């Protein structure tokens, strides 16, 4: 047989490459996760006298398909009272728990919280601002008029994120991407 380029060592080499290279295919799933997942939204309302009411909704599987939990806690609001309120966003799926609200405040220019309240007679006004004096919305006041109809009411919390869309001071609804969209129940007492 005429001289070959080491046929046997060539095929041995190929086999060795195959075995060696499959080692660099060590598959793994790094538990990176989406660390900015918001898994709980908490609303806190403080009456002028100091009484605090807290409600929250949990999404225990983060971005998974299980629907968020029902609201935990109740909000009972008296007519003719103006409450001060705050919203808190947390990621409780990691240890230690991450308070996302501080990040939202740190990036205030890219975020805004919108609130929609029912029934008529209830007004919610956000109080905090970002660095360009546009509303942010992590703190607010909620005024329940004396003439507001008693019974069931709602508070919809919308956390909006602006990256490509421009955050405008006078917007009434989200024009960016929605990070949170949760409906809370708040009863108006008689």
């Amino acid at each position, binding site marked *: 047989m005429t001289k*070959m*380029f080491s*046929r046997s060592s060539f095929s041995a080499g190929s086999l060795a490459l195959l075995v060696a290279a*499959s080692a660099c295919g060590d598959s793994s*799933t790094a538990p990176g996760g989406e660390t*900015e997942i918001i898994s709980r939204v908490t609303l806190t309302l403080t009456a002028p006298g100091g009484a605090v009411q807290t409600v929250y909704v949990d999404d225990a599987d983060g971005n*998974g398909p299980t629907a968020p939990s029902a609201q935990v806690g109740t909000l009972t609001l008296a007519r003719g009272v103006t409450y001060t309120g705050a919203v808190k966003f947390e990621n409780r799926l990691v240890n230690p728990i991450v308070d996302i609200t501080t990040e939202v405040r740190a990036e205030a220019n890219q975020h805004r919280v919108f609130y929609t309240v029912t029934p008529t007679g209830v007004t919610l006004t956000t109080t905090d601002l970002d660095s360009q004096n546009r509303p942010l919305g992590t703190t607010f006041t909620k005024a329940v008029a004396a003439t507001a109809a008693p019974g069931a009411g709602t508070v919809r919390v919308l956390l909006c994120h602006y990256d490509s869309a421009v955050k405008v001071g006078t917007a009434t609804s989200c024009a960016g*991407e*929605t*990070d949170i969209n949760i409906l809370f129940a708040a009863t108006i007492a008689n």
Partner: protein
Amino acid sequence: MQPHSSRFNCASFYVCVLLASPSGVAALAAAPLHAQTAPHGPERHVHGIVEDSVTGRAIEQADVIVEIAPTTRTAAGATFRKRTDDHGRFDFLDLPATIVTIRVRAIGYVQDVRTLDLTSSDRLITVHLIAATNMLQEIAVRADTLAERLGRVMATSTLNAAALSKTRGQTLGETIKNLPGVALIQFGPSIAKPVIRGLNSQRVLVMNAGMKQEDQQWGTEHAPNIDSFDASSVTVVRGAATVLYGADAIGGVVRVDQAAVPDTGRLHGDVAINLFSNSRQGALSMGAEGGQLRLPVVGTTGFRVRFTSRAAGNGAAPDYYLSNTGFRELNGSATLGVARSWGTADVRLSRFGTELGVLRQAHVGNAEDLQRAMTTEPTDSAFSYGIGRPNQRVEHTTLRVRTTFALPRENSVEVVYGLQYNHRREYDNHGPLRFRNEPAFNLKLFSNSLDVRWTHPRWNGLRGTVGTSALAQGNQTLGKAFLIPGYDLWQTALYAQEELVFGRVSVNAGLRGDVISQTTIAYADLGIRSAAGTRSWKNGSGSLGVAYVLADGLDVSVRAARAWRPPTVNERYAQGVHHGTAQYELGDATLQSERSMGLETTLRFRRPSLHVDAAAYSNTIGGFIYLQPTQPVLTIRGAFPGYRYTQTSARLRGLELSSSWTPAQHLEITTNGTLVRGTDRTHGGPLFDMPADRVTVAARVTGSRAHLGSWFVGAGSQMVRRQDGVPAGTVYTLPTAGYALMQLEAGSTNVVLGSHHVDISLSVNNALDTRYRDYLSRYRLFVNDAGRDVVARLTMPF
């Protein structure tokens, strides 16, 4: 080697008939099979065909000399000489009924000498000539004759180097989109996924440089990571070609091939520049090759290198720019090859790198955001080369080592080892700024493949290949968000593809058995439902096709094929929002494999001024996997339309017609039509995302002139009919309107520019700047498709 029997009697005549294998369609049709004709007086008839022993191609203009030796009865001998025609055929009438010697000679081949005994009957013979030089290149070609033989029973279309340089588009998909049976799923001008007969992604196998492309092709927005300049031909095979290529070829194959590295010749190459006005793209590609590189130890080596770079900005629809749809590409490849007496060997290293922007409007939060994005006219309408979030970065690196051994008696063995590394990173807009530089998806795919193919010598007219194929693949899922789990995949297969030709009939049969095993790794995060586990599948696929030469220039074929495909990791374990459509997709780990049973028929008609190719098919796929709408998924982000991967019984049927007519010497009129009908047999109604019916008509005038070279001018129209096959479960209103686009082209090859010869071509796509939205476009909910694109291509060989 042809058996040189000195006594050609009845028995060996049948052997000759069996060995006759027409490579050209009309080859044997004009040489009617006179089996054992009764001897008619002292005059004998010898006719036959001369072919290349390796490729089976007919050899035209070969010298065939019949010599009759002087005998005691005839004082002098006699010599008759003829040349084979365009189909390699020759014909001698009026030969004496005696023993004659036939010599067949052709340039580049070893002379064939044989004796024929004409005393009792006429003879029909086939002469297989062996190439004298380039024996080794032929052997390298031999492995690719698989595709050629398959082409007799399957519908295939090929773009050769000349066609590629005239029609090369912004992406590989755009380059082949006018071939029959092909549609595209596009994400703007920068991402194009080929759709063959209604099937795409993991049902269309893409091959590059003889290796199956492993570039996470399961994603609809993951376009093939191939440098379209680094190709000497692109072939589209329509229909199930799973026996030769593996389970992914259930819908078809797109093969990107490079010519063999030269083994002789000085350094030469080319520089190509392509400019596209729509996205203000510039592409530059430089390649060089030669056959006389001297390396230590190895000796004389052939080599080829290529380097390509592209830069494009935002695409433009007729009224606005498609924001954030620019892209970049940086690719390179180098091949070294040797040709020796024992065979050939080559090593190829390539790298493909791209960064692409994703249409900003398409990247939405929840269903309400989607509604807003669909109804708002694009406002961010400015041109920019910048690529912002969301964007993707992909690198695909390959190493291929290929050896072909030329063994005695026309055996050849080919061994191909491939190593591929695909790294895909996708960046999105979400999350706090400190995470913005980390990819949302970060997927690394390592694939090792080993293919061994044995092409056995012709045995009683049977010609074919037996091979094994093995794949070891591992995936790492890193990155902030979950898309698919990490997994290991092992695949082995054994297959045989044989062809038997007798007279006008050729039978092509193939059988393949695969074992596939998939091991997934649990994702350590709450709420992600991916279980760890191993699943394996064993199945067989096969095909049987018959081609029949009806008449000179007309042949038909019928083929039945059984194919299967296991569910991919994303179909089993996907979980999360697909941002471009606000769809929440859920996989199903219990999915079974798809099984298809297809019947197809092709017809080929060839005359000097008219070529017609027609194909019809019906493919029933049991367990067809697709995304079915389910109830909305509620998360803290809001509501998303829910979709679940599920299976149904589907049927795909279609028709393809393409023709080329030359009514006058320099005028060519081409037409191309494709029809696809996909039906959900279980629920009734159409399948989701089937391409609409389309017809392309074009006319081209050619000529040539001293310094202008061979020029051409043409115009054409692509007409797409309204898509009325939209399934009931579709959540959003999809664009179904039909449209027509006009195309113009002009150019010339071999134009003299100073001391150089260059090829120039100019195309105008969507010449009338028509506003349209293709049904398959993935930006169809947000923006129109691209407007006018003026393309200039210049290729300068050196």
